[in-house]
């Protein structure tokens, strides 16, 4: 169960010294280019999109990034022992391995929330009555599954494989199955896959697999429960004078009216354009967050107009309240 080292910095095309802001920018640029909805080569871009997402997941998290940087330095010497304190059981006990979750083997091994709850072989209490064979339920296994916002919108069927080492025979067993990701699967929500955890012992039932949904980062949207958020850059005069702008949502564009006197950071809501809420037919909302952008390069004419505005304006941003 070995994994290939991933160079996340190369994936995002940034240096090891890149700031958090650099990472965000690089991710957005690449994600926009390779997003499965826009790219021409769909299958190829999907794999690429996942790679970019994974790199972003690790490098945008200061803790994971630190760990990754340490790992990189010792890469050749480290071997492939899972790090200590990893998940619920950790250590050599953690002998399972996912496929199809959208994360690479490398990520699974070092950064995922994959963990095991249950009855580690050695520590199991001896409830056995004299002579009776010990029957024990297998451990539950927990892991993350990367779900794009589009998948969360439509729902999808995901093929998963799980390798576990049989404690009795030492053999690696692979189980393949498909898991339904329901429309409206929110970030953090767990999906229970009964009987796909570790095998039981002595005729005991197998444990369950709990897959935690992780929404893939998207170049244009983020999610908050069933709501979708979109940051929209606007010009100062658009904020002051108001305007209409066509903005993308997860299912088609909407025409958004920005009221005159809109403020930077203001949230505008389009009702019921977010993710579905379960089977109820209800939906979350779509929020546009206004980001007023200031021009940096000015033509002579523009400069004159700003100067004129300065001279004429009665606006006093620092006036006493």
């Amino acid at each position: 169960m070995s994994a290939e080292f991933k160079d996340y910095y190369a994936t995002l095309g940034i240096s090891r010294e890149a700031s958090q802001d650099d990472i965000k920018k690089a991710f957005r640029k690449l994600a926009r280019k390779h997003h499965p909805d826009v790219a021409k080569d769909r299958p190829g871009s999907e794999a690429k999109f996942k790679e970019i997402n994974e790199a972003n997941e690790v490098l945008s998290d200061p803790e994971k990034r630190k760990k990754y940087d340490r790992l990189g330095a010792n890469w050749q010497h480290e071997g492939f022992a899972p790090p200590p304190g990893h998940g619920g059981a950790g250590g050599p006990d953690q002998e399972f391995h996912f496929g199809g979750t959208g994360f690479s083997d490398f990520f699974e091994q070092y950064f995922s929330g994959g963990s095991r709850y249950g009855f580690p072989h050695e520590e199991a209490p001896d409830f056995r009555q004299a002579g009776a064979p010990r029957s024990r339920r297998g451990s539950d296994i927990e892991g993350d599954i990367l779900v794009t916002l589009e998948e969360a919108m439509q729902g999808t069927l995901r093929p998963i494989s799980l390798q576990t080492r049989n404690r009795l025979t030492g053999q690696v067993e692979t189980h393949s199955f498909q898991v339904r990701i329901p429309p409206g699967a929110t970030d953090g929500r767990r999906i229970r896959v009964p009987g796909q955890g570790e095998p039981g012992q002595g005729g005991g039932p197998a444990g369950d697999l709990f897959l935690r949904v992780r929404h893939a980062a998207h170049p244009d949207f983020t999610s908050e429960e069933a709501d979708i958020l979109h940051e929209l850059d606007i010009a100062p005069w658009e904020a002051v004078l108001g305007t209409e702008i066509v903005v993308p949502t997860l299912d088609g564009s909407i025409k958004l009216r920005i009221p005159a006197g809109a403020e930077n950071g203001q949230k505008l809501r389009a009702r019921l354009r977010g993710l579905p809420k379960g089977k109820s037919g209800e939906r979350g909302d779509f929020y546009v967050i206004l980001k007023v952008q200031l021009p940096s390069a000015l033509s002579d004419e523009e400069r004159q107009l700003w100067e004129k505005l300065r001279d004429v304006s009665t606006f006093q941003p620092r006036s006493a309240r």
Partner: protein
Amino acid sequence: MSSEPSSGDPPVFEDEADLTYTIDVIAGLAGVDPLTVLRYQEQGWIRSARAAAEGDAPAWFDAESLRQLRRIEYLRSICGVNETGLKLILSLLLEVEQLREECRQLRR
């Protein structure tokens, strides 16, 4: 929870989010006594998906409560944690999870 081994395709697991269990079923799935479930619920350690309705209608539990129940049993019977320790650990686990989610949300 349906398996379709017919065509040789891997079995499909349907989403169970809307599935709820009675106290007896969830106790059976976790291998504990229903009274234990009731006690944990009273302590606020596991939440029911749907609270006991008016009258004496029983509470219903979901997959999240099942996971929590199994974690409690793991801490109690394998790690040998007593009730005082359990209370502390469960509140810490909850807090860590919430903080992690908050951090994640802030980074996005």
